[in-house]
Each structure stands twice: as structure tokens, then as C-alpha cells.
């Protein structure tokens, strides 16, 4: 600890204030004004210390005191994180309602974890065992998820002298080491510093999301990065929420950064009633929410992504696969811009600070599949929404994000307007993980899967070219084979790509079901081209009735018998078509 220092306020201009006479280091947390609002040092200039304040500054006057805590902005990590909802600086919103009612007033602090609650600590090491930094010394069965208690990474570590068992608060010592260090269930970690790992590994396992277009065409790896840019109303939030619900991560951190209050409420009301398709347990039990909505202070919005990713890293260090959604990284960038312009910094592109690109890449760099300090493996997958002004992807936040992330899921207003959801444009989007993941698909889905994907992409690409001709001459003028291609592409779009997030069955589609649907479409295509070669008229081929039942499969839970029946019916119908020749 650097010791307390006091100064006085000299200037207040929105969320940025200036103090004089304060001894400070960059990113120290300070208490501003008579009400001791929380702030953080963001610039030092001669005798002046410039501070961003995490709460509303109205009414604060020059002359009021400022004191430096000497600490960095940090989060409390330990049992109690799961199922919580926090603001951007880890104040629990549930506790704030108790303390100050329905509206968020200022000057109230609340710790991120409950310091009174006792948790059942079960030791996993015994006296005499080695406990290096990152080592797991015990666990707490929280929800259905176990929070593993680790030696903090910034400890020296040593041999366990004494370890306890039983009910403790997060502040009580549960283990002492011969290095003289006391391990508690809670650790405190500065949000702007990535938590250390032994090594970054190559992400080669997909994050299975249950979303056909993602798993099927543009998969993200566990520990990978993805961006979802799109204009307003195109489906960023719905997609992020679907990922938060159905992706096969063990822990989900969902950051509502500068977005709507109601969307966070929706997650809070909906998640406890939904089941994890794998564990059957309520989804809320694996979820941590950070909600710093658009009308909450911008400085805390800036901090919210760091708070979120630090919590994600903490669970990763326990050996979990964590996925983190940030909705929206553009609001985070705008918060940086707002603070930067109050500092009268030289603006870069479109008023964003020159360090925008650096901040974005530092953030995404905290994703990854890693070997943890204790030798286990864990991952943080980062999926960021981007909200480009006017839906124009050439703007700085989208462009700088594109340079870093490996998956690009481009939302398209043209698709959302015609209610093609998810409105992810299959021609512009891409995933750079296809090669590294192909082995997993071979082994876990089917050796045919990678081939089917390539086939589907080719058909869709072909359709786009044909559509240009159709726009000029009408579809009847196309050659026979291409008429069939157009029909197959339409099936791929309407049956495979479209997925209704609000349908209780279709919202999640297992890899197996994705494969079955794809195979059925491919079967139709194969039969159709064969019939065409045998001389059947394309008009008859595209209007066979057996395939009309295929879309219903999406909404059917036990679909196996149905899809088998459709396959048979298609085969039979094509046999008839050829016999009729």
C-alpha cells in the first residue's frame, strides 16, 4: 500500500475532475468530494491529478476534499460471484436496491462479495503439501458449480502449514503457508492487469453454441475471439443472449456495457427458468452479469469490460471454460472517447483516442485457451458486439476489432428486415478456426461434416451469383441445373441458416441435429441433380411435396423418426418422378 494522501478539487467537468495537492499514481482509486465518490486517476500533469469518477458528479464543488486510497481498481474474487449482477465497478445491484431503493443514487458502496456469508470450505490439500501460486487448495460447492479456492497468483506460495475445513467467511484464513502467507477464500485482483497463466495454447476445440449458422459455417473455438457487428435491431443482443444460454461453456460472464436496462432484466428473469442442455441445471447458476446500462455513469461503463474479463479469468484459472459476451464494445469505445475528449486529448479517427486500437487488442488478448498456473487447462472465449454508426462497417471500432478477432459474424439489416434470423450474412462472415477445428468435427460429429460445410458454402456462394442474373431476367430463364441450385440454396437458408431464438425447441440445436438436417438437404440435392440428369423437368423437382415437412423438424424435439420418414418420402417421390418418364 502506497499510503493515503489528500488533496482538494479544483475543477469539475462531468465525469472528469481535477484535483491538486494529491500524491497519486496512474490508476489509483481515489475518493472524490464530501460524499467520497469513487474515482480513478487517469492523468497526472504537474501538480494536477485528473480523475474519472464512477458516479454522477452533479453538485460537487471545487474545494471539496479528495483522498487517494493508494489501491488500483480491483475486483473481489471468491465464492458468491455466480448468479450475481453487478454494475461496472462490481457493486452488487441487488444489494444497492436494498441500500438505496429502485433508483441508483450515488455515494453508496457495497463490496462485490458478501463478507458475512459463511461458505462450506472443503480442503483438497493437507499440511505438508506444496502449494505454489495458482494451486487449488480447496473448494466450495456453490450452485451446481464448484468454486475452487486457489493460492493467489501474486503470492510466493510454499508448503501448507495448516489447512481448515468447515464454514468460513471469505475474509477468514483457511490455509497458512510456510512462506508466512495466509490464504483466504477471497482474492482481490486489479482489473486492468491480466491474470498470469503458464502458457497460451492453440484453441482446437469448438465452443458449441447450438446455433446452426455458427456451429455449421463460422465456428468459434473455446478460447477464441469473435465479433458481431451490426446496425441497430439486427440481432446482436439476441445472438449474444443465445450464446450465453446455450454455448457449452461452464461459466458465462455477460457484460451489458452501455446498453438497455430492460435487456439485463430480461436475462435476470429468464435465465433462472432455463436449463443448461448439458447439466439440466438452471442457467443462472453458471452466470455472472455485469450491467452498466447506457444511462449509468460512463466512467463505470469504461471499467465494466475490465471487471468482466477479470472475473472470467478467475474462473479460467480454476480450469473452467468460460465464455464472455460484451454487448456492446462500441459503447465502451465511446466511453473512452468521452473521457478522452474531456481530457482534451488530441483526437484520432472520428474523435476516438489514438489508443483505441491498443485498448481493443489488449482486451481481446485476454481471451485464450491456456495452461493455468496449476497445470490444468482453461479458456476464456470473448465475443464482442459492435454497434457501428449507421451500420457502416468502415468505422474505427469495427475496423480495429476486425484486425484482432478471428471470427466475424456480420449482421445485415437487409436480412433482419425480412425477418431472416439470425441475420448473419453468410457471404461476408468468416471464421479463421475452420482448419484447427476440423479434426474435432471429424472425431465428434462425423467425418463427412467438414465436406458438408464446404458444399453448403459453395451452393450459397453460387446462389448469390445466380441472384444477380435472376434480378435481370427472372428465375424461369435460368438453365435447369441452376434452377435446382437456387432451390437447394433456398432450403439451406430457410431450413438450416434461419433459426428462431424465441422458439422453445429451435433456440438450441444440437450438433447431431444440425448434422441430420444438413444431410437431409444434401440428400434432396443429390436426388434432385440425379433426377435432372435422368430427364425430369426442374419444375417437378423443385415442387416435390416430401421436402415441405422438413422445416417442421426444427420445431420438433424428438425429430429422429420424422426426419427418417421425410428422407424415405423424398426417395420414394423421386423414384416416382423417374418412373413417370
Amino acid at each position, binding site marked *: 500500500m502506497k499510503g493515503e494522501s489528500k488533496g482538494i478539487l479544483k475543477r469539475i467537468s462531468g465525469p472528469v475532475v481535477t484535483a491538486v495537492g494529491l500524491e497519486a499514481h496512474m490508476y489509483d482509486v481515489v475518493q472524490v468530494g464530501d460524499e467520497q465518490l469513487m474515482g480513478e486517476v487517469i492523468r497526472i500533469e504537474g501538480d494536477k491529478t485528473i480523475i474519472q469518477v464512477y458516479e454522477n458528479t452533479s453538485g460537487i464543488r471545487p474545494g*471539496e476534499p479528495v483522498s487517494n486510497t493508494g489501491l488500483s481498481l480491483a475486483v473481489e474474487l471468491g465464492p458468491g460471484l455466480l448468479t450475481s449482477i453487478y454494475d461496472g465497478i462490481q457493486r452488487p445491484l441487488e444489494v444497492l436496491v436494498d441500500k438505496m431503493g429502485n433508483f*441508483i443514487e450515488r455515494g453508496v458502496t457495497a463490496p462485490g462479495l458478501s463478507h458475512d456469508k459463511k461458505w462450506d470450505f472443503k480442503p483438497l490439500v493437507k499440511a505438508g503439501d506444496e502449494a505454489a501460486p495458482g494451486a487449488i487448495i480447496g473448494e466450495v460447492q456453490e450452485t451446481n458449480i464448484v468454486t475452487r479456492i486457489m493460492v493467489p497468483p501474486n503470492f510466493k506460495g510454499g508448503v501448507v502449514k495448516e489447512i481448515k475445513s468447515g464454514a468460513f467467511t471469505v475474509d477468514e484464513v483457511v490455509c497458512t503457508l510456510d512462506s508466512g502467507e495466509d490464504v483466504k477464500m477471497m482474492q482481490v485482483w486489479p482489473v486492468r492487469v491480466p491474470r498470469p497463466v503458464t502458457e497460451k495454447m492453440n484453441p482446437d476445440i469448438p465452443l458449441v453454441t447450438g446455433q446452426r449458422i455458427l456451429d455449421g459455417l463460422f465456428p468459434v473455438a473455446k478460447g477464441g475471439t469473435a465479433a458481431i457487428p451490426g446496425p441497430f435491431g439486427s440481432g446482436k443482443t439476441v445472438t449474444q443472449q443465445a450464446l450465453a444460454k446455450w454455448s457449452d461453456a461452464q461459466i458465462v460472464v455477460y457484460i451489458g456495457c452501455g446498453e438497455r436496462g430492460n435487456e439485463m432484466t430480461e436475462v435476470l428473469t429468464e435465465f433462472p427458468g432455463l436449463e443448461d442442455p448439458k447439466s439440466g441445471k438452471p442457467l443462472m447458476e453458471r452466470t455472472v452479469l455485469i450491467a452498466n446500462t447506457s*444511462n449509468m455513469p460512463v466512467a463505470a461503463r469504461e471499467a465494466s469490460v475490465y471487471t468482466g474479463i477479470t472475473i472470467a479469468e478467475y474462473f479460467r484459472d480454476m480450469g473452467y471454460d468460460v465464455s464472455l459476451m460484451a454487448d456492446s464494445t462500441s459503447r465502451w469505445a465511446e466511453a473512452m472517447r468521452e473521457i478522452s475528449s474531456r481530457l482534451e486529448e488530441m483526437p484520432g479517427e472520428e474523435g476516438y483516442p489514438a489508443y483505441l486500437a491498443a485498448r481493443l487488442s489488449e482486451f481481446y488478448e485476454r481471451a485464450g485457451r491456456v495452461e493455468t498456473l496449476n497445470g490444468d487447462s482453461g479458456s476464456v472465449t470473448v465475443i464482442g458486439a459492435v454497434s457501428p454508426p449507421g451500420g457502416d462497417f468502415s468505422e474505427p471500432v469495427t475496423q480495429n476489432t476486425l484486425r484482432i478477432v478471428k471470427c466475424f459474424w456480420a449482421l445485415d439489416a437487409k436480412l433482419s428486415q425480412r425477418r431472416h434470423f439470425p441475420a448473419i450474412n453468410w457471404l461476408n462472415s468468416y471464421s479463421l478456426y475452420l482448419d484447427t477445428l476440423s479434426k474435432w468435427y471429424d472425431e465428434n460429429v462425423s467425418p463427412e461434416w467438414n465436406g458438408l460445410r464446404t458444399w453448403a458454402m459453395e451452393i450459397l456462394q453460387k446462389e448469390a451469383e445466380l441472384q444477380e442474373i435472376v434480378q435481370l431476367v427472372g428465375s424461369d430463364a435460368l438453365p435447369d441445373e441452376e434452377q435446382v441450385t437456387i432451390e437447394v440454396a433456398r432450403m439451406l437458408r430457410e431450413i438450416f441458416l434461419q433459426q428462431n431464438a424465441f422458439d422453445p425447441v429451435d433456440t438450441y440445436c444440437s450438433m447431431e441435429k444440425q448434422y441430420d438436417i444438413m444431410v437431409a438437404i444434401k440428400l434432396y440435392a443429390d436426388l434432385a441433380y440425379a433426377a435432372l440428369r435422368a430427364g425430369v423437368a426442374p419444375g417437378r423437382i423443385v415442387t416435390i411435396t416430401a421436402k*415441405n415437412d422438413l422445416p417442421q423438424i426444427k420445431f420438433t424435439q424428438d425429430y429422429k423418426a420424422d426426419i427418417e420418414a421425410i428422407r424415405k418420402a423424398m426417395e420414394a417421390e423421386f423414384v416416382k418422378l423417374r418412373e413417370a418418364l
Partner: protein
Amino acid sequence: MKEYRTINKIAGPLVFVEKTEPVGYEELVNIVQSDGTVKRGQVLDTSDEIVVVQVFESTAGIGRDSGVRFTGETIKMPVSKDMLGRILSGSGKPKDGGPEIVAEKRLDIGGAAINPYARQSPEDFIQTGISTIDATNTLVRGQKLPIFSGSGLPHNEIALQIARQAKVPGSTEEFAVVFAAMGITKEEENQFMADFERTGALEHAVVFLNLADDPAVERIITPRLALTTAEYLAFELGYHVLVILTDMTNYCEALRQIGAAREEVPGRRGYPGYMYTDLASLYERAGLIKGEKGSVTQLSILTMPGDDITHPIPDLSGYITEGQIVVNRDLHRKGIYPPINVLPSLSRLMNAGIGEGKTREDHKKVSDQMYAGYAEGNDLRGLVAIVGKDALSERDQLLLEFADHFENRFVRQGHDEDRSIEESLDLGWELLATLPEELLVRIDRDLIRKFHPKYRSKEA
């Protein structure tokens, strides 16, 4: 209260005052002109050397000789139940010849953010009687749903029709309308007031009027006064409040004017970089709170400059609101009222407010199917212009006709035509029945069998 005569700079709506005692950020300021007129303002930046004050009225008449008084508190407004039926100016002064508002409470107009944990998800269907809203872009209680329009289009008529007809079927709870005009013309004001009087709505309404010839910077506080009033009525008195804010474009122009006067680095098209955050501080003041009876529903109107939906004003609004109703010039030219283009329109809270037990089990699917049909039919219009109708397949010809029927029968309705949700959905089915059944891929078989006119008439 101390009065300073240390004004050293006046630039547009900003007054710079030197050598003051410590003054609080966002404090309310009174500026006294030499003729005794008092003007109000707010502190934008404060330091021990200089204080920047944004004046909410014209700065004409303010000079070095004017006195500046800092009130020591942020802007608060008196609120009371007696405000219902009153007409106030854009800064909250009585405009109807009635007495000053006697405060039951004085509230900060900035409005603190509702804690997301305290919010209740909106899910009560509001029937507006307009098919393109009820059936395809459903409004629910506590939603913020703006109307994106263009100059010269009938957005006011639509807003008034909604205000007249909006009801939650089966509910008898108390409702109120808070109407805030920012920079609208006298003529538009008359249109609104005449309608409020004709229908008796004024009794349940609080009206704030900042007209085109009122000071532009006053527009910064007008919506805040309106929303503070709305929150009071909703969360302290239990009313279901519909807030109409018009025209948000004028509000944003005022915001840009202040940004320019402060010599800030401008963002897109000269609007301040913080406009998203500023607009959010208005639009987010809508919703429901757990355990409270009332609600605030927001219907703001904005005119898109050059009909451009990517302009920063509609763009940033759309990123905050829970959907948008887009009024379209082509439909208006075709003589269709209300000229709502459903394709770019959206209600994000629709799913929560519809379906079995709320509206009808087929609602979502009928809506999706109509969208798909209309979108496809609409695209085909472009093709027809090139290749002619005869070159289209039979399927495409039917879709093309569907798009026409959709506009002429579903979109078009009378100014006082109040369609129930059943009527709107049945009308939808009637139009869908013009398409072959196998084209209705978005609707489950069961629903088709239950609601498709073909099967229904057989049963009857």
C-alpha cells in the same frame, strides 16, 4: 445569496463567470439582467477560476453588467397530482393562465437510473387499434418505441391516433398522458391541443410546450421536466403514463448548438460525441419497476433529416429504443394512411407481449409470415419493372399481388378506425389465404388448420 458581476465571456448560450466562490457542477443559476429580467441556466463546468453556465433562454440582454446568482442546488421541479390538465411552458411555467404548481414534492430533473435489478420486464400488450403496430410491431406497457418520420409526413396524426385509441384490453387502471413539445410549430401545437380537447384527453394530460420560436436551449430541459413528471405520476401515484416527446430532432439540434458553443470536438455530422449517452438519459427513463403499480411508456417522434435512417439522430435513437415505427414517404405518396413501412419497423418487446393468453396463439407466426411475404413481394416489384409481370412465375405473381393487398388492406386504415387485435390478425389470415398453402412455411400445420379461412369456413 451572493450576486457576481464577473461575467467575462458570452458565447452563444454559454456565459463564463470568473472569480466565484466554489460552485457545484450542474447547479441551477439565475442571471439577472440590468432591466430586472431573470434568466435560468445550469453549470456545465466549474473550477476555482472560471464557471461555465449554459443559459436556457436567449442570451440577448445579458452583458457584463448582469448579475449571476448560484442557487446552491441542482435543477429541481415541483410536481403534484394537480399537474394533470395543465399546460406548461418548455421550462415548466404555467401557460394556461392557471396558478403556479404547488409542490407536493420537488424532484431533481436529471433523473437517476433505474437499477436494472429493480426493473420489471414489460409484457402487457397495448392495443393501439393500428394493424401495422398491433399485429406486426406490438407495443407493450413500459416500452420506448419511437416514430421515425420525415418532414411533411403524418407522424402527428399517428401519434394522436395511438394516444386516443391505446388501451390494455381488460384493464381499468388509471392512465395519463405527458406531452412534451420541443420546437414544434404553432400549427402543430394547435393540431395536438385541438385533438386533446376534442377527446377530453387534456384532463388526464400534462402538457409542456416549447415552440419553434421559444429558445432552442430550453429544449434541453423540456423532456427532462416531462419525464420527471411522468416518473412521479407512474412510480409514486401509480398511473400508467404515455409520454409523447416531439420532435427529438429539435432536441438534438439544441444539443449540437451547445456543443459547438463549448468548442467541443464534434462527432458525426457535428453532433456531440456524447449524444448517445445524452439520449439514453432520456429514453431509458421508461419502464416498469417491481412492486410499483404504474408504468412509463415512451412514444417519441423524430423527423429523419433527408429521410435518412442512418443519420445520427435516428441511428443513435434506434440503438437505445426498443424498436421503431418507420413512416414512409412512398406509401404516403400512394395515399396510404398510416404510411407505416413494416419492413424497417421493429418492436423488440413484441415477443413478451403476444401469444396465447395475451393476444392469440397464432400472432407471432402470422406476423412473421406476412413479413416474409411482403418483403419478397416488394422485392419483386423491382424485377417487374425490368422484365414485366408476365415473365414471373405463378408463385411470384401471387407474392406480388400479396404485397399490394398488404398495403391496401392491411396497412391502410381510417384515422378513427380502431381495429381490435383479432380483427387485425384475421385480416392478416385473409391476405395470407391468397397464397398457396405450401408457401406458408413459417406457420405450423396446426395453426393453419385452426385459423386459415379455408378450414375455418368449413367448420362453420
